């Protein structure tokens, strides 16, 4: 739809372009959401040494593969930003496509992991460690899904050479999702 | 209306005095501020042909009108904090040697009281359980262990000026020393479901003889 962009959107009193300013604020609010959840988890984890036993049933190598996948997708995402800055929309779209592929791989591995765990009897109600495990990883996975969908739209636009600045915006968001996983990985999988 | 409530514990008067102390401090500020406020409204009401003054509020001698009261508020705060923390420490933090220990258990929607019975020890065979009636002896120091079976409750005894939430899974210890005989309300002060309004109990503060008589009669009733 032909929607006129208000003049307000084009002003930039801070020197930060408005979309990027907004995404930083979104990230600030995400930091407190994940920070709250992980902070609460951390307090429980320290207070409950017996959770080490439950945590030993998580599959570290799957978590590790997923970390690798997300790191790589972050890498392709930043390359897409580089391409977009040079005005190369097609290249940016291709790299964003790789990033989306990374997201899908992450989700597939995640579903496999959860399936095996649930089949082994570790469900969200098994004990509070598992409740935290599924809640935190699930909230993160939701962000992965949302990011991948938005990235799809951005990639299509970028392919047609439109709205190239959005590549950077979705990139910042995507790296944040990666950063959250960087902390989730040791918290849920490694610390025994 | 606070004065119509008896002060039936050792710290009830402390809490009332603290409230009075804070009341005097904030009362002075309140009437001063409202007084000046209404006086200014009257004094500077719009008069035809008179233009308002242009005051920026940047010069130091003008700013004083804000900064000095500002500092005074801070000083008053310090006094209030000291007074409040002293009372708080006395009621909630320190724990005098008890003469007896009782257990208070909240559940939807009644209070169960576990009295130590004749041997003055909890969790023995002669403990006296009552629902809705707490019997204590005046001038004796009691510890209470507060527990809950289901949801949050709050053990509130207005005449003691005492209140403490009961949390399922936890045991919270507190103390009181009754100073006056009589029969008073115990309330639940934390919403606990549809029966919250009926979760009442009575505290019976008795002198030594009456209390001993109650213990023997209650023991006789529960242990056949």
């Amino acid at each position, binding site marked *: 739809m032909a929607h006129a962009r208000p003049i307000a959107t084009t002003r*930039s009193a801070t020197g*930060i372009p408005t979309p990027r300013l907004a995404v930083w604020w979104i990230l600030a609010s995400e930091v407190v959401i994940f920070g709250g959840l992980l902070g609460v988890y951390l307090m429980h984890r320290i207070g409950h040494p017996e959770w080490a036993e*439950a945590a030993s049933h998580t599959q570290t190598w799957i978590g590790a593969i997923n970390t690798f996948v997300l790191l790589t997708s972050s890498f392709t995402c930043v*390359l897409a930003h580089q391409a977009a800055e040079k005005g190369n929309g097609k290249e940016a779209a291709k790299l964003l496509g790789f990033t989306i592929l990374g997201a899908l791989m992450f989700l597939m591995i995640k579903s496999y992991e959860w399936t095996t765990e649930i089949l082994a009897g570790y469900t969200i109600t098994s004990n509070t460690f598992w409740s935290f495990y599924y809640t935190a990883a699930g909230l993160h996975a939701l962000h992965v899904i949302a990011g991948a969908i938005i990235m799809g739209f951005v990639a299509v636009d970028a392919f047609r050479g439109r709205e190239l600045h959005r590549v950077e915006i979705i990139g910042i968001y995507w790296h944040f999702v990666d950063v959250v996983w960087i902390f989730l*990985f040791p918290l849920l999988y*490694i610390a025994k | 209306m606070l004065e119509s409530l008896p002060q039936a514990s050792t710290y009830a008067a402390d809490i009332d005095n603290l409230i009075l102390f804070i009341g005097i401090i904030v009362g002075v500020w309140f009437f001063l501020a409202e007084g000046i406020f209404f006086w200014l409204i009257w004094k500077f009401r719009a008069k035809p042909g008179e233009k308002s003054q242009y005051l920026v509020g940047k010069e130091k001698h003008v700013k004083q009108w804000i900064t000095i009261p500002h500092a005074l508020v801070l000083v008053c705060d310090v006094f209030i904090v000291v007074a409040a923390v002293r009372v708080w420490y006395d009621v909630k*933090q320190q724990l005098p040697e008890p003469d007896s220990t009782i257990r208070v258990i909240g559940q939807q929607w009644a209070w169960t009281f576990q009295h130590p019975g004749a041997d003055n020890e909890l969790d023995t065979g002669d403990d006296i359980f009552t629902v809705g009636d707490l019997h204590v002896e005046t001038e004796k120091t009691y510890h209470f262990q507060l527990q809950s079976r289901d949801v949050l409750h709050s053990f509130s005894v207005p005449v003691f000026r005492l209140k403490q939430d009961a949390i399922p*899974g936890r045991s919270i210890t507190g103390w009181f020393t009754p100073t006056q005989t009589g029969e008073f309300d115990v309330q639940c002060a934390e919403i606990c479901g549809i029966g919250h309004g009926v979760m*009442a109990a009575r505290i019976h503060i008795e002198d030594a003889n009456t209390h001993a008589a109650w213990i023997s009669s209650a023991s006789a009733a529960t242990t056949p």
Partner: protein
Amino acid sequence: MSENNEHHDEHGHDAGHHVNYFKIYVILLILFLISVVGPEVGEATGLRWITLITAFGIAVVKARLVVNNFMHLAWEKRIMKWVLATSLVLMLIMVSGISPDVMNHEGQRWENIAAKAEVERGLAYAAGYAEEESEAEPEVMVAAAFSAESSFGQICATCHGVGGAGDGAAGAALNPPPANFTDPAFWADPARDRDRVITVIRDGAAAVGGSALMAPWGALYTEEQLEQVADYVMSFRPDAD
């Protein structure tokens, strides 16, 4: 679009920083390997600090690398750094305010009995006492010698009354009102036999189609105790001897 032009002007600030993204990526991968291998070493050698540093220390380094180089926060205006730092500091404040109550299981004049029991149960289970797994007896909070009468007096009587007449203090507010066990009409229904009384006490009245206000109490009693309480309830029956 004019916006894009302006956008690129604004973007001038990081044009001068040609980050070698591939280099950063390789460093991240190396750090990632350390964070996987390190804890294994830590566990094998029993040195807990190795685990903590390699797991969490490396995570912080990795996050910094991503945030600074991929998200370009390093070249962003100072205000956004402050905003993000503030949100992190707030989380620290939150955790330090909450942890005395939630992380600890006891403190001044309070004790978290349930959490302690949970820790103990879990540790015992982890230590390999497999038999503990078989439904460790749920703790009855009032650890006195069990008697159906006193248990009824403590728990049931709040609604059903000490005499079982449905006249307990808490019962007055309930709709439907609590059952009156001394009323012959109540027992007139032949379905109300001993098994059903046990079921209702254990699983709540809703389990047999009754009011949800009669809560399930099964967690409080062993099967044997349940029967005793049920017998005590049955003893209110007017035609019981």
